[in-house]
């Protein structure tokens, strides 16, 4: 196996030498380390810096090196040993923890009759965290509007008071079944939370989830995860901890060298943390990573490759076997990503039934309320959403021929997905599919003594993580105010803060 030794980090290494104590000047650069080694060292460096930034003493923060040090030594030993088998470490891609995006059942926008709504059918999911959606356009109204919808669940407030552990998650399960949202009419303001005013409330809604639970914290989902995904994580941990044990328990000489090196390195890292105030975060992480790799080169790689530390045949064999197991485990974990997507799909396709009450504070016309039954289930190959609703005026105005009941009817929506060419910046990024739906609503408007037919085709295009562009074309036989058919196009964008937070983490340190 030919191992390239071209370095592109020499300037950074020289910079590192300038900021380190004199003894570190004797360190050598670890040119072109294996990807998995560099990634683990970089992640460890990021955690050390984060701990220091939280106010922990530099020496204590540097001790976080211990959480990855043994695997760094193992990877380095495998890289230094002669022969091709241990060098499989160079084929290992950086380990990515399994995670998944793709919850699509949460109703992030306004209800179908709210200002600027692009939804004809409503989904029955309830976001646990504050979700924010700003949508432009209109359906079921004669004027265009811009709505800002805030949604949450009482459970979000419960966990401000109680630890949100598994026991309380079960105990306060009822609170998770409740949800509420407020939609503000933002036509004359910037669509931001800071600019909302109580007088702009266009509608408020309360929901109760009667059947189903799509949380990934339920015992049912955890059990599925244990059956499908956990065995593959287990295989990696077995291979990695076994390899570390073979290397370090098999060679007291290596163990002593690695221990001495980590102690010295922790001191150097602590010194650097204290002396590098004001240096950009990314640069600090890079320098700590370089320091770590240099220490590994000097105290592990060189002594092994130059046979100054000799490993027994049994240790060599143990490392080789562990490395082969690790390579296979990494490959299996890529398929586990799909397995996880599969069980998340199972979860997202489980039936949900929600009852919703909404009060519409109309800017024009009379205020009214409605009650809805919202049902969602998977009917292969589609996701089906069925709504039934009835609405009534708070104070019917006889001058407009209004009676107590405003309208009633039902909606059916069938949704499927196609591959998304957007939203992927790296090969391994998980991309949410484009959702395509077709919906039909039949309702009877009492004051007009007329039936209303509405048909809609909608595309939800995730353009990047947490940001979705909904587009729709709608035909209506009439609106609630004007007895003329119309075809209307709507567009908007939705932000999911849960996913944006997740994204912020996913790219931190890279």
């Amino acid at each position, binding site marked *: 196996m030919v191992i390239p030794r071209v370095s592109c980090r020499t300037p950074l290494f020289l910079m590192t030498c300038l900021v380190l104590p004199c003894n570190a000047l004797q360190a050598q650069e670890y040119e072109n380390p294996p990807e998995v080694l560099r990634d683990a060292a970089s992640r460890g460096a990021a955690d050390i810096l984060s701990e220091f930034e939280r106010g922990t003493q530099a020496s204590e923060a540097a*001790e976080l090196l211990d959480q990855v040090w043994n695997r760094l030594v193992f990877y380095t030993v495998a890289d230094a040993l002669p022969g091709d088998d241990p060098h499989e470490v160079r084929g290992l891609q950086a380990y990515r923890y399994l995670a998944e995006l793709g919850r699509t059942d949460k109703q992030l926008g306004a209800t179908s009759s709210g200002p600027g709504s692009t939804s004809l059918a409503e989904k029955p999911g309830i976001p646990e965290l504050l979700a924010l959606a700003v949508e432009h356009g209109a359906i079921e109204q004669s004027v265009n509007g811009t709505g800002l919808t805030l949604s949450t669940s009482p459970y979000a407030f419960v966990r401000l008071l109680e630890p949100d552990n598994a026991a309380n998650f079960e105990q306060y399960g009822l609170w998770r079944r409740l949800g509420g949202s407020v939609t503000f009419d933002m036509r004359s303001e910037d669509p931001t939370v800071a600019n909302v005013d109580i007088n702009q409330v266009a509608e408020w809604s309360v929901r109760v989830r009667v059947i189903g639970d799509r949380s990934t914290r339920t015992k049912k989902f955890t059990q599925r995860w244990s059956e499908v995904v956990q065995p593959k994580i287990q295989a990696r941990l077995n291979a990695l901890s076994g390899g570390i*044990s073979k290397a370090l328990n098999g060679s007291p000489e290596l163990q002593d060298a690695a221990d001495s090196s980590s102690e010295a390195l922790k001191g150097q890292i602590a010194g650097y943390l204290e002396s590098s105030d004001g240096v950009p975060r990314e640069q600090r992480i890079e320098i700590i990573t370089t320091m770590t790799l240099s220490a590994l080169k000097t105290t592990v790689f060189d002594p092994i490759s130059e046979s100054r530390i000799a490993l027994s045949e049994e240790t060599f064999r143990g490392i080789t076997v562990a490395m082969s197991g690790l390579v296979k485990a990494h490959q299996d974990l890529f398929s586990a990503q799909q397995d996880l997507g599969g069980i998340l799909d199972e979860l997202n396709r489980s039936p949900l039934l929600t009852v919703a009450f909404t009060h519409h504070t109309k800017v024009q016309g009379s205020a009214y309320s409605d009650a809805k039954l919202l049902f969602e289930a998977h009917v292969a190959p589609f996701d089906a959403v069925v709504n039934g609703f009835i609405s009534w005026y708070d104070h019917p105005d006889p001058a407009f021929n209004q009676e107590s009941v405003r309208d009633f009817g039902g909606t059916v929506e069938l949704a499927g997905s196609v591959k998304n060419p957007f939203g992927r910046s790296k090969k391994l990024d998980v991309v949410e599919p484009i959702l395509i739906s077709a919906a039909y609503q039949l309702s009877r408007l009492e004051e007009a003594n007329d039936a209303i037919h509405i048909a809609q085709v909608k595309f939800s295009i995730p353009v990047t993580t947490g940001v979705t562009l909904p587009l729709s074309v709608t035909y209506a036989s009439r609106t609630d105010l004007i007895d003329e058919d119309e075809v209307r196009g709507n567009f908007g964008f939705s932000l999911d803060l849960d996913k944006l937070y997740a994204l912020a983490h996913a790219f931190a340190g890279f």
Partner: protein
Amino acid sequence: MKRKTKFRYDVSQGESVTIKVTPIETGARVTAADNGEKLENSNGPDTPTFEFEVDQVPGNSHFVIVECSFLDEDPNTAHFDFELRGSKGGVFKDVVVRKTNQIWDPEFRFTVS
């Protein structure tokens, strides 16, 4: 069990070590291995608990890796609280794996003294 750092401990031969992991704002998805062997969860699903008996010779170590699996839909404040306990003394409760951490599978080293 005596602590050297949050991730390194000295233990005695025959001592039992218990690692209890409490998930906060996330599901109980925890996996553990010790020197190449699976560590079974000896507790219920709410609070995964892993236990092993120190059987290495003096100078050698148990290398335990515990992976905490977050999902992207977990809030940014989600974390796992660890409690490490030795049957011959020593209880330590200040190890936390946060979703915002870069390392979700820390190593613990228990060296036989």
